[in-house]
């Protein structure tokens, strides 16, 4: 996979370079969080706007990528207010359509993620897409390690129901 080189250990040069190096991964993270390309575009743009507004501080930060990732996640959680009653997280699995029996037309992962509670979805994306530890995820979301594990477990349980061919045991 052609990911941009990590900027975790080196300070970024210009803002443009930083966006070009980190933008694709941030955008893909946004798509997984939003489940909507249009909204993901807006979220990514809003994130980098905030980064630009504080660029002097961000580029001096220990880890500008982590900062940007945090802004992205927090902006998304905040952004949800705009659509609060649009995306109703479904708590009861029986309300969900059953997974399609044909594996070739199985439920798309992004769609399945969008059916999780947003807070649970954030945990899954941070843990399994961005490869953050439980502790890093907890710190970013401002919750405890225990709550993070609980949300993760709940999310995986739901994903397992929607995507039965997924090896979630190995993932968790």
């Amino acid at each position: 996979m052609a990911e941009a080189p990590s900027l975790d250990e080196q300070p970024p040069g210009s803002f443009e370079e930083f966006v070009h190096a980190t933008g694709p991964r941030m955008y893909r993270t946004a798509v997984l969080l939003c489940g909507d390309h249009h909204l993901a575009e807006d979220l990514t743009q809003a994130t980098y706007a905030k980064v630009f507004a504080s660029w002097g501080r961000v580029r001096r930060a220990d880890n500008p990528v982590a900062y940007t990732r945090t802004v992205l996640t927090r902006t998304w959680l905040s952004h949800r207010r705009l659509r609060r009653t649009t995306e109703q997280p479904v708590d009861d699995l029986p309300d969900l359509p059953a997974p399609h029996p044909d594996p070739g037309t199985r439920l798309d992962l992004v769609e399945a993620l969008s059916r999780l509670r947003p807070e649970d979805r954030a945990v899954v994306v941070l843990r399994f897409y961005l490869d953050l530890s439980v502790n890093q995820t907890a710190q970013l979301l401002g919750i405890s390690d225990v709550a993070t594990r609980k949300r993760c477990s709940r999310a995986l349980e739901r994903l397992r129901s929607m995507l039965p061919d997924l090896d979630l045991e190995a993932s968790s």
Partner: protein
Amino acid sequence: MNTQLSDLMHRDVQDLTPDLDALTQAARRRGLSIRRRRQALSTLGAVAAVAVIAVGSTQLRGSADSSRPAATAPTTPAPTTQASGTTRLSGEATAAGLRDLLGEVVQGRATSFAGQDSTVSYDSYGELRWFPADGSGFSDVGLNVQPGFESRIYHCQAWQVACTVTRSGGAKLMTFEEVTEVAGGKGIRVTADLLRADGVRVVASATNGAELPANKWHITRARPAFTAQELALVVGQSWWGPRIPAELQREGAALPGYTDLDSDRGDWLDGSPTAKPTP
């Protein structure tokens, strides 16, 4: 198929790449706007502080010398604006419009104005805390305006209480309640969700207290201060849309203590890594 979740996530989005030049330019523009807003706010804050100090010291002098009348605060003339026209709906205008409409339904006063808007989707959100004039507990009220809604199925679901769906002239209105069992009672959020024939969706909700993180509530009253029918009147106001009367924007700009929910200033950068998320 026996796929790791992590691998599947990477595979599902690996081909997605934004237009990085366009992203950089748009982020710069919005970032500059945030900087300008900050500068304006800090200037306003400094002016206000000077005014308060000046008035305070003058009044102190006045009280020490009763023969001299106490000074009054200098008044600043309102900036001149175009008398008519429309402007793009913003979070602050949404909050101002919401305040005006709620005041026509239940007497009271509003505080804690906040909101956000999107330059991409043109969605807008405004919220406030409403204290009824009868002295009963406050309600938190929020309102979303979402233009460009092509379709949405309105049907009541099991978790919705007292749910109704009505259709009229191409518009659909759904009202319902969400009830959360919490320590000390029930957290109630009543909602009116209107999809107009022109594709503008307007959703308003009111609580019987403050909904806190981690599914906790601070309950202030038995029921929200507004009924579903009253919220239906609020969402039914014809001015809601991507463009609103300029007057509403001026009202929004004057809201005391308005919080832009997207104005993360990065202050937590220098603080604890577990600093409170925004918001």
